[in-house]
């Protein structure tokens, strides 16, 4: 599949939140305010891009030649945890402003299933190194898009009257469900029409 195809697939058609349910915990947890949602979104894009690249390198250059691919789960989790820590240290050193904006979200990302999810999906789909990187980036963009839309809606919902049992999380789920219905318009047929 072409790179454009991968991007459209992971941003719209297989949006991680609305069709794959990966990364729902931060999606519900951090979508109360727009600014924190944007911070989380960019942190996720960053980590997902590099995590899928790093896990590709380790899987194809270390695990496969050594016949250790049954260690996939353990290795990937450790690689992602280390990578998040590394990214945190690098950002702290290079750009204190960026660190201030993303810092608190980075540790949360380790247990974000979207990151491990994209790494595992890229391996299952036999992507190349650059394709994995692009897929990670696109899935991150899809997450940003979803969480940005969601936080905008939830900020409006705060000022509206909501039936008491629905306040907080339930209404967020119902909203996400309606958004997922809208995202059903993006399907494989659309991709075929766009890039043939």
């Amino acid at each position, binding site marked *: 599949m072409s790179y454009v195809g991968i991007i459209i697939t992971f941003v719209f058609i297989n949006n991680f939140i*609305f*069709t*794959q*349910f*990966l*990364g*729902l*915990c931060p999606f*519900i947890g951090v979508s109360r305010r727009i600014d924190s949602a944007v911070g989380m979104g960019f942190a996720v894009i960053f980590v997902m891009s590099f995590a899928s690249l790093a896990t590709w390198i380790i899987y194809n250059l270390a695990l496969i030649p050594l016949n250790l691919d*049954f*260690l*996939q*789960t*353990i290795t990937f*989790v*450790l690689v992602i*945890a280390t990578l998040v820590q590394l990214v945190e240290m690098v950002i702290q050193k290079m750009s204190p402003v960026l660190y201030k904006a993303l810092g608190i979200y980075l540790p949360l990302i380790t*247990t*974000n*299933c979207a990151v*491990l*999810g994209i790494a*595992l*999906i890229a391996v*299952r789909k036999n992507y190349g190194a650059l394709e994995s990187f692009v897929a990670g980036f696109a899935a991150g963009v899809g997450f940003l898009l979803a969480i940005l839309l969601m936080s905008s809606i939830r900020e409006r919902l705060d000022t509206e009257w909501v*039936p*008491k*049992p*629905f*306040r907080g*999380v*339930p*209404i*967020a*789920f*119902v*909203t*996400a*469900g*309606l958004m*997922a*219905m809208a*995202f*059903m318009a993006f399907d494989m047929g659309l991709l075929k029409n766009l890039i043939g």
Partner: protein
Amino acid sequence: MLKQFTNGIFKENPVFIILLGLCPTLAVSTQVVNALGMGVAVIFVLLGSNMFVSLLKDFIPEKVRIPCYIIIIASFVTIVDLAMRAYAPSLSKSLGVFVQLIVVNCIILGRAEAFASKNNLKSSVMDALGMGVGFTLALTLIALIREVVGSGKITLFAIHAIGFNGEINIPYLSDSPIRMIGYPAGALLVVGLLKALFNWFESRNKGAIK
């Protein structure tokens, strides 16, 4: 002892009350059989990790405890994943990456950190069983609603001895099911509505006590 078991099923149900481990809950709740398979996998991993964390709690240094827990959990997840691929390939295929994703399921790390690292073996086992069964029940409930409404049938394990092919068709509903509920969007709606229902029950109970 029994309290720890029932705690996970009702009062601290991981899915409905403390909202942990949502991603697999939604993704594998398309069919009842998937929900049950996932539930068994989670119970096994939770039992294994809670047991090991509880046994090793005096040997694991405070500072590196989270990576240690993750390695313990990942080992059990690998066991489940490989066993499922070997003995239940079709189930493994329909659960997809979500078997491996049990490793980042917050319920398991959460119980290791919040319960097993502070309690003895016996209560950790009971806690794991309670939480695991609570998770499975919640997951099965969601899958049952989605499958009955969304495709008008219930898929279970096939038992060839009595000629049961594993599917229960529900008359009328299977002719014209509400397909939306079976789609991803339906999963989000069902969970939102169920959570609202639980909130309503809870507030009503509180009102009754007052």
